[in-house]
């Protein structure tokens, strides 16, 4: 990582595809993975004489995203043409918002768990959010020595929002936390699928270094093609190291665009003329200014669901969870819903339910690579399991055997406990007699215990547990043995 002489300054530009039914300016349906050029109209293909018409659903969703990110919604915004030639751009210009975006001056609070800096929260400013249309896709192929490229315009015209952060991100971990939080917020509001593999969520980073404490920003590089959270982190870590080396040798950072090579885990210069682009932005004459009234904004605000931070705060306050645990649950909206369902089914032990979900359940989801929606154990079942433990019906140890059975069979824990006869033995008399038997049968160990070896207590507990097939109430066993052994 960077030598301690440098401050790292990062800004992120996140593009999210809006999950509208039709495209931003045409009535072609949005799609993913469809047969090439089957979701286009003459407008999408850039045919002469066609004109854009703004999709109101896209505007609505952009405003929802802006409100969720605490932005000011601008009453008047405009579209502009961004001009360049590339085969995936059918009109040879992209309709975007350059001068007057729909949203400005937002913010996002993020939590970071940094092995060096510890756990902390910070707020990252959001400079602006604007609406623009996506380009098509190119595929390269060909045979017999002739290179061919193919243009698929299904994606061309899909609505995007571009979220630009202030350069207030100071480490790769903060960058990852920011991107994860953006994703969570957009998923909560329901405006995008945020699928990085499918490309409905993309991230570019701008990064520069400056001498520690200096107020002058250094030259920045832009990194593209980071398609996973780990990729984002690796790219930034590599670039920090690279820039530090250059600067420490007295060199200068060239302002350029770099591509992240996921295989090599490094950034590479694009070294092509495309960098010298003058986009010749000018206001889009085919579209009137976008006007939104205060009332319309207020109406849209009322449609927002509870956002991650509000949910997190509520979990901390109402359920006594730690901020970190609440964050983990809240990061995935379906997971948070699952948790709340479980707590509703058994309100007495919200912390314990949280623990089960963030450890045992999370492990299974990760191992099977599934989402909570696909998990075989219902929220009510998890609640039951915790209840059985809390009421002493089964021990925590037994529960760890019951749980995998629940996962495999989908059965309720009570059913499994009854079928297998796993209930904790509560009978005082029975336990007492077994304890007495074990103590009586091991005088040497008793002697060792009495002469100061306290660790051997476990031997007696083990003996009782073996006799009771692990179903003795551990608390009771401890009490009785302690009394017996003095």
């Amino acid at each position, binding site marked *: 990582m960077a030598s301690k002489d440098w401050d790292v300054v990062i800004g992120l530009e996140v593009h999210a595809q809006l999950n509208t039914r039709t495209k931003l300016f045409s009535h072609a349906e949005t799609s993913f993975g469809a047969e090439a050029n089957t979701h286009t109209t003459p407008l999408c293909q850039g045919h002469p004489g066609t004109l854009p018409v703004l999709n109101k659903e896209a505007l609505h969703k952009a405003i929802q995203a802006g409100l969720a990110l605490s932005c000011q919604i601008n009453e008047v915004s405009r579209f502009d043409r961004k001009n360049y030639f590339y085969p995936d751009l059918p009109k*040879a210009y992209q309709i975007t918002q350059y001068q007057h975006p729909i949203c400005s001056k937002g913010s996002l609070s993020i939590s970071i768990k940094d092995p060096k800096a510890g756990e902390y929260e910070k707020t990252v400013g959001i400079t602006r959010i604007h609406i623009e249309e996506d380009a098509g896709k190119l595929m390269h192929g060909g045979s017999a020595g002739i290179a061919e490229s193919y243009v698929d315009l299904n994606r061309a015209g899909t609505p995007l929002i571009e979220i630009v952060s202030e350069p207030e991100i100071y480490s790769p971990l903060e960058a990852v936390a920011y991107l994860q939080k953006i994703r969570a917020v957009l998923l909560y509001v329901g405006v995008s699928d945020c699928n990085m593999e499918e490309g409905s969520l993309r991230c570019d980073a701008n990064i520069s270094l400056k001498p520690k404490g200096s107020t002058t920003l250094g030259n920045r590089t832009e990194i593209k093609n980071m398609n996973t959270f780990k990729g984002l982190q690796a790219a930034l870590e590599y670039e920090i190291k690279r820039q530090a080396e250059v600067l420490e040798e007295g060199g200068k950072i060239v302002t350029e665009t770099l591509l992240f090579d996921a295989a090599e885990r490094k950034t590479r210069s694009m070294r092509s003329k495309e960098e010298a682009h003058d986009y010749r932005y000018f206001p889009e*004459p085919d579209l009137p200014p976008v006007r939104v009234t205060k009332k319309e904004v207020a109406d849209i605000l009322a449609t927002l669901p509870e956002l991650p931070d509000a949910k997190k705060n509520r979990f901390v306050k109402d359920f006594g969870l730690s901020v970190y645990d609440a964050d983990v649950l809240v990061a995935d909206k379906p997971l948070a819903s699952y948790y709340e369902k479980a707590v509703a089914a058994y309100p007495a032990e919200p912390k314990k339910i949280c623990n089960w979900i963030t450890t045992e359940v999370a492990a299974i989801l990760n191992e099977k690579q599934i989402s909570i929606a696909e998990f075989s154990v219902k929220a009510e079942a998890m609640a039951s399991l915790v209840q059985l433990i809390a009421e002493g019906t089964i021990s925590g140890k037994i529960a760890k055997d019951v749980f995998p059975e629940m996962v495999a069979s989908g059965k309720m824990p009570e059913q499994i406990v009854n079928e297998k006869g796993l209930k904790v033995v509560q009978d005082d008399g029975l336990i007492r007699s077994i304890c007495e038997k074990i103590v009586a049968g091991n005088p040497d160990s008793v002697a060792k215990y009495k002469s100061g070896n306290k660790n051997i207590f476990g031997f007696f507990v083990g003996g009782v547990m073996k006799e009771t097939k692990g179903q003795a109430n551990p608390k009771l066993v401890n009490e009785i043995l302690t009394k017996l052994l003095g």
Partner: protein
Amino acid sequence: MDFSKLTLAAALRGLKKKDFTPGEILAHFVSRIEADQKRPDSLNAVIGLHPETARAKMASVRPDSLLAGLPVLVKDNMNVEGLPVTCGSKILEGYVSPYTGGALERLVENGGLIYGRTNMDEFAMGSSNETSSYGPARNPVNRDYIPGGSSGGAAAAVAGDLALAALGSDTGGSIRQPAACCGVVGLKPTYGRVSRYGLVAFGSSLDQIGPIAKTVEDTAILLKAIAGHDKRDSTSSDRAVPDYVQSLQAPASAFLKGKKIGLPKEYFTKDLSQEIQKRLDTVIDFYKKQGAEMIPVSLPTSEYGIGCYYIIATAEASANLARFDGIRYGRRSKSAKDLKEVYFKSRSEGFGLEVKRRILLGTYVLSSGYYDAYYLKAMKVRRVIKNDFDAVLKQVDFILTPMMPDPVFKIGEKSADPIKMYLSDIYTVSLNLAGVPGISVPCGKDSKGMPIGFQLVAGHFEEEKLLQAAHAYDKEVNAHG
């Protein structure tokens, strides 16, 4: 029956009385076009003749519709599904349109039958129809002369009795000026009055489709057939369309009495040809006799119109024409070996000189370092020009101006001097910048026998009164209707 002697209005009356059929009218004009095309000095007004397209729709025409099966020519920059659309350019050779535009849909709904596509300056960039890659069109009054541009073919067809009705497009005068050159009537509607959906864009904030016909009454009928809101064009107005035809029934002198007509001093300078001034004087006399009051007015920013127009129009055009890149449709150079060559060769081969000139100019004025001085400045000047018109049109009902500073010239006379060509747009471009409607009406001939027209201007969406005022002159002096 010699339909060429009829006006559109007279032909409609005949159709409704069943004196003749749409098929007969169509056959007449098709054979006139075919005959003209055989001449070595053909008007070359029509790029594509499609009688079968008209015949295919003939059966579904309602006899009580506005146009009742009347055949109409359209400029070759308007999309009609299944027909080629070339914009007078090689770059769209072979291109067939996948859809029909809004104004033409309306035209057909109202009973119009499209039977051909007219010649034009390439991508509507020109004032003489000399930049077409299909060869120049000629003025039917004298075939050595230009018919004007860019809707030269449309005006020539109407004036040359190859059509009773044509639709052109006007970005900086391209309907009005050729109408004046050929001695017919041409109307540029208010920006937003007629749908641009389906019109191949040149200057998106300036373009409008409009009618070209023999009389003012004819253009009123055509405007009624195409005007109105189209939700596929976000710049189209949802204002109600008045009955332009009905309002022409009102008696002219009653209408004109007390109306104020502004004469902008900047338009009547010594740069205006004497011959044209003389004809304008007679027009002024006419309106005075009808009881209208002539008011000297000023449009102080007039001198900036050309500069402002050529910056904004070319800027928009440079972006609008970028889609012609040889990738998805149209001409792709056969010798292109890689992507760069596809772009460079297709566009170099496909575009003519004037189009290239304007694309370069438009790209320049938008480029980094020049945007503020040119494009941004021109947009600000545009606002001031519009304010000038708004202010004057508060004082007067109409503005009366010449159409051209000089008489119609011969083919080839000005084509070597693009600046001189641009300057001839001096009376027309400001209307597109301001968005106001204007109509060109014939008012006599020059010493060479070539037509002269005058221009009448009204406020935004005031086509109804504009047509009434123009009709008053046309009916009386030109004996039209």
